[in-house]
């Protein structure tokens, strides 16, 4: 049903809400009650002066009566219906939004909340499933509880027990009770952190990520080539709590400074302005390898991009997230990422358009342009394969230089199997929790 023809329904709803009888309103605007009845049941079109008079009497903008709810609300309702598999056309959504604007807004808000909670579930599931610290702590708790239970049981059930054994078991229980208390405290601390999915930091890699995030992956003093700049960043970094995180950050800042020296910020930005974000051209222009150019692009303050680096085992050792392209914090990522394909084609620069399932609902996709390359990180030895590291730059499709031909065909990828809705994917390792009702 067209929006315009639903003006009658909106008039009726407003009139009833204001406690006006049909005859009253009709008289006030100079028409018969039966004609108003036809209008209210959408059997007569309404517009012009009559619409304005009724709107005035009902204390509402004429456009609200004529056009109904905002188009965005209708669009959201349609998307929500599609997502939950309801066959509701846009006409029905418009009808619902017009008749019950408050409820329509509530549905839209509830759907947004569901999406937000789903994101939290993804984050927490990812963490709870793959976090090695949680697994180790739980193992410690269960092992200690087993020792206490077993020892206490011996003390209470064994009628005759030698004094030295009794003393030893008492000591063991005391030790285990202390250990259990510490493990339980660590577990509570961890779970408290999980409760705030955005603030928890518990591993060296996470501390390092928090450090980079605090500086938005850009270090101005290193751009200026200031001596001891890296040390001053490290010294003031409250995020780097462990010595491991400190070492990782120090290594990264050294690499950053080297890249900045080879590809000075202003000149590099000018090159991008002139030629676009084309890593191979930039690498050639600055006489650096492809991975260096990819890394450098990811440090620019004005380029919206993500980057991920993995070692030869596929373990991610560096990540800069980008909206719409979730990168698992723990566990394995989607094997279809060009990052991993790069490992089987060392030194070949790959450019692929990929699509990720979007948050908005079934069938919606977010597209990205990726550039990936795998390169040796250690100098070669006679008779031995070089050790490789793969780097993948992720750009929203509108950031990239114009592409044509095969690059325009998007490869469907995901985040990790556990939270990926592509059930028929041939690369699937394990069932998705998204298919189980999330």
């Amino acid at each position, binding site marked *: 049903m067209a929006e315009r023809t639903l003006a009658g329904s909106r008039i009726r709803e407003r009139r009833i809400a204001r406690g006006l009888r049909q005859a009253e309103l009709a008289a006030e605007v100079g028409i018969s009650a039966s004609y108003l009845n036809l209008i209210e049941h959408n059997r007569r079109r309404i517009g012009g002066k009559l619409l304005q008079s009724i709107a005035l009497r009902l204390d509402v903008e004429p456009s609200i009566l004529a056009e109904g709810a905002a188009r965005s609300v209708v669009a959201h309702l349609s998307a929500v219906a599609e997502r939950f598999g309801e066959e509701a056309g846009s006409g029905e959504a418009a009808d619902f939004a017009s008749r019950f604007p408050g409820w329509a807004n509530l549905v839209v808000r509830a759907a947004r909340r569901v999406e937000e909670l789903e994101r939290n579930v993804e984050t927490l599931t990812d963490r709870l499933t793959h976090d090695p610290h949680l697994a180790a702590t*739980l*193992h410690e708790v*269960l*092992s*200690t*509880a*087993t*020792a206490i*239970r*077993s*020892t206490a*049981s*011996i003390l209470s*059930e*064994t009628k005759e027990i030698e004094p030295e*054994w009794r003393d*030893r*078991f008492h000591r*063991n229980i005391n*030790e*285990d009770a202390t250990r259990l208390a510490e493990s339980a405290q660590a577990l509570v601390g961890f779970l408290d952190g999980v409760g705030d999915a955005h603030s928890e930091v518990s591993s060296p890699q996470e501390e390092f990520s928090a450090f980079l995030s605090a500086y938005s992956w850009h270090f101005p003093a290193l751009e200026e080539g200031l001596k001891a700049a890296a040390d001053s960043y490290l010294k003031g970094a409250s995020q780097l709590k462990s010595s491991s995180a400190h070492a990782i950050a120090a290594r990264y800042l050294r690499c950053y400074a080297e890249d900045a020296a080879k590809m000075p910020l202003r000149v590099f930005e000018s090159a991008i302005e002139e030629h676009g974000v084309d890593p191979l051209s930039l690498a050639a222009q600055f006489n650096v390898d492809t991975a260096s150019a990819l890394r450098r692009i990811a440090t620019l303050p004005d380029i919206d991009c993500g980057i991920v680096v993995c070692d030869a085992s596929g373990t991610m050792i560096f990540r800069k997230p980008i909206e719409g392209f979730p990168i698992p914090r723990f566990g394995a990522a989607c094997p279809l990422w060009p990052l991993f394909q790069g490992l089987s084609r060392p030194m070949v620069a790959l450019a692929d358009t990929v699509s990720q399932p979007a948050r908005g609902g079934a069938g919606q996709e977010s597209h990205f342009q990726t550039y990936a390359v795998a390169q040796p990180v250690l100098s070669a030895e006679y008779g031995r394969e070089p050790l490789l590291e793969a780097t993948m730059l992720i750009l929203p499709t509108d950031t990239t230089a114009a592409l044509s031909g095969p690059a325009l065909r998007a490869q469907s990828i995901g985040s990790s199997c556990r939270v990926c809705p592509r059930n028929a994917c041939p690369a699937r390792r394990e069932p998705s929790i998204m298919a189980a009702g999330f």
Partner: protein
Amino acid sequence: MTEMAGKTVLLIEDEPNIIEAIGFILSRDGWTVHTHSNGQTAIEAVETRAPDLIVLDVMLPGRSGYDILKDLRADAATAKLPVLMLTARGQMKDREMALEYGANRFMTKPFSNAEVLEAVRELAAL
């Protein structure tokens, strides 16, 4: 002393206080108890001790209990040796993996002494 007198059990576990507790109850039941804490050298310990039964933890330093079990089953000398597996992971897939690799029994922590004793006695009768 029970009919277990003279029988030998090898307890492969890295948690010292669990070793002491289980060792104590099995000793009281008449078993001769040997213990070993390192996954890497567990197979050598089995060869040296030649036990009648093994109590094997899954998470061990050096090598997992599953890998040790696989090697035991691949060797004709230990292929039929009764093995009770202990683990802090009680998920179905862990149980399935243990049985697939050839464990005779699978027990999740925290277990009771009575359960361990009962399982060991049952396995001794195999």
